[in-house]
């Protein structure tokens, strides 16, 4: 099924530049050539020294600005389209959840770096413990994405490598009404994908799934079940010992 490749997490798509691609603007790295593709020449050197360059103004903006407010309607319509689009291509409920997960994955990878940079690298620390990265996702990352922190963060009592992040009303599923014959489909699989992407790129390999577990007063309450890979657990135990 070649179509399935479309939205799986693509992490290793090398650039398609070749040796022949010439450097039109004097700047730019070409991975097929290596370090000699962007070495400093007399021309680029004088450009750098004399500052006779026009920088792309979009990139000049600081990324440390406080997050903007986005209208809930436009977000919901966008998510509606996302679900609709994935639904048309999917072959079943499991497949639809996988597709939503895959779309969220890349957001997670990128948003992790962004929110860490926004926090300010000078005073913050790199998260290297399971509990710390989970707390970071539960509070800082959640706040950046949804404007509030997640409701609960729990460790499974029976299984060593399972953790849960619980949100009483995930923002994206606010207006989603799952038809009865769709079983236990939960569109927050998209958010599960975001968590998975963030954890994976931070080096804590995990599988994340979303499950609806209604409680009185919050019918949309969703549990994000995080199952860490065994290697993550054993690595953590090693660093604790040493």
């Amino acid at each position: 099924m070649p179509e399935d490749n479309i939205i799986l997490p693509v992490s290793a798509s090398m650039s398609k530049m070749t040796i022949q691609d010439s450097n039109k603007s004097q700047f730019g790295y070409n991975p097929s050539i290596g370090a000699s593709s962007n070495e400093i020449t007399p021309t680029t050197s004088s450009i750098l020294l004399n500052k006779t360059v026009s920088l792309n103004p979009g990139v000049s903006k600081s990324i440390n600005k406080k997050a903007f407010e986005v209208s809930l309607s436009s977000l919901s319509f966008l998510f509606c389209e996302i679900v609709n689009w994935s639904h048309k291509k999917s072959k079943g409920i499991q497949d639809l959840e996988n597709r939503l997960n895959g779309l969220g994955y890349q957001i997670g990878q990128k948003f992790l770096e962004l929110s860490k940079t926004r926090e300010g690298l000078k005073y913050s620390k790199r998260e290297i413990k399971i509990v710390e990265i989970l707390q970071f996702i539960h509070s800082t990352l959640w706040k950046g994405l949804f404007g509030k922190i997640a409701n609960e963060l729990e460790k499974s009592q029976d299984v060593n490598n399972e953790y849960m992040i619980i949100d009483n009303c995930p923002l994206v599923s606010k207006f989603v009404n799952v038809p009865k014959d769709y079983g236990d489909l939960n569109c927050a699989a998209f958010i599960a994908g975001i968590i998975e992407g963030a954890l994976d790129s931070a080096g804590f390999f995990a599988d994340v799934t979303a499950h609806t577990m209604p409680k009185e007063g919050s019918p949309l309450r969703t549990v994000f079940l995080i199952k860490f890979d065994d290697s993550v657990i054993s690595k953590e135990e090693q660093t604790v010992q040493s």
Partner: protein
Amino acid sequence: MSSYYFTIIGTNDTPLYELEFASFKLGGSGASQVPGKSQFSNNVKEILPFVTHSSIDLIEDVQWNNNQFYLGKVDSFYGLSVNAFVTQGNIKFIICYDNGNGRYDENAIRQFFMETNELYVKELMDPFYSVNDALTSPDFDLRIKLLAKKYL
């Protein structure tokens, strides 16, 4: 005048970006040289990618015990020093440099890495860029070189 070799290594241990340069601050080496052009001799140039690559193991040993972004000096090889920085998403910034004349500024390298991280994150926000792609944008290259000029 120190020369530097800067690399960004992705999560698959492949280089995403490389840059060879020298300090733009004028040394006593005369006006015949192009400012900023690296002064590594040819046989050092060849081994730079190997020195960088061999330091990845050392970085991975340190990164789970040290919760700083900037890891400081992690390795050295016949007069070449290697300093490293790891982002939250496990992208490694590695810089190899010769500090033959002993003049090197730890703080400047740290600052350079911090601002590079910001540039990298901006590049990451590009919808046409996904993690572990090579950083081929001319604008990124130019900005890294401006940072190099500013700090090193």
